């Protein structure tokens, strides 16, 4: 007697690493928290300090003279000074806010772009022209925007110090090139080109029966 045909009724295994709507919500929450933290650190905290009349801290580099070391034959070089300004003038407070506002603009714009691109990834249709554009903008923000904003800090520091009496110290402010962010920007630019190629492949199968 022949056996009736059996059907494999087992469901296909779920791809646990697939980017679904829960991951999209989680990413949105994560980026939201990150942006909120950036707002708190770069805008809210300085404004609260200003409202309270707290001292303003202005770090800078200058030569260090230590007579005890000089007498032992050692010659110290540059040191970091933390200038504490009491009753800082309003324009100093505003200058102090500027670099933070620059970073905040970068973080929020970048977060929004990532969220929109990953939204299309979650929908299963990522290789659209607007995502190529978004990724190129994100790459530009990282490769060009980050160094520009990073250069704000020494400029602002020197502007703040120009109004302050440092005695015979010659102040210098350090510029730290955000090399890692720029490298990530290059990777994002390469990803944009991959998305562009994906868009061409997508167009090839558009309307394919």
């Amino acid at each position, binding site marked *: 007697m022949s056996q009736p045909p059996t059907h494999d009724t087992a469901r296909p295994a779920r791809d646990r690493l697939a980017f679904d709507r829960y991951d999209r919500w989680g990413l949105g929450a994560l980026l939201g928290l990150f942006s909120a933290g950036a707002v708190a650190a770069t805008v809210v905290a300085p404004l609260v300090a200003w409202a309270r009349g707290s001292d303003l801290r202005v770090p800078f580099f200058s030569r260090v003279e230590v007579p005890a070391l000089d007498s032992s034959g050692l010659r110290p070089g540059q040191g970091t000074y933390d200038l504490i300004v009491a009753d800082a003038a309003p324009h100093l407070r505003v200058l102090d806010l500027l670099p933070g506002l620059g970073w905040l603009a970068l973080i929020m714009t970048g977060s929004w772009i990532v969220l929109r691109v990953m939204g299309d990834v979650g929908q299963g249709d990522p290789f659209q022209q607007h995502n190529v554009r978004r990724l190129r903008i994100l790459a530009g923000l990282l490769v060009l925007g980050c160094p520009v904003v990073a250069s704000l800090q020494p400029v602002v520091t020197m502007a703040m110090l120009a109004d302050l009496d440092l005695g015979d110290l010659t102040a210098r402010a350090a510029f730290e090139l955000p090399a890692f962010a720029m490298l990530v920007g290059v990777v994002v630019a390469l990803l944009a080109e991959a998305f562009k190629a994906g868009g061409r492949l997508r167009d*090839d*199968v*558009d*309307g*394919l*029966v």
Partner: protein
Amino acid sequence: MPVEDPHRVACHLDTLLESREMTLAALADAVGVTVVNLSVLKNNRAKAIRFSTLTAICDVLDCQVGDLLSSSPPQP
């Protein structure tokens, strides 16, 4: 002719279905292609067709490729 130019291939699926007295849904079920995709083909909105799909349609409708698709001459 560059690939990007619009094509002049017409699909006669509606005529074949009518002559075989078969619905689009029945053909879709027999061929293993979605009704949506077959509708795209029937309404001349398809840009490309897989050979496997073409073979399946011809088998089910008992026709040749030339019965299903034809190319019109270029406009002067």
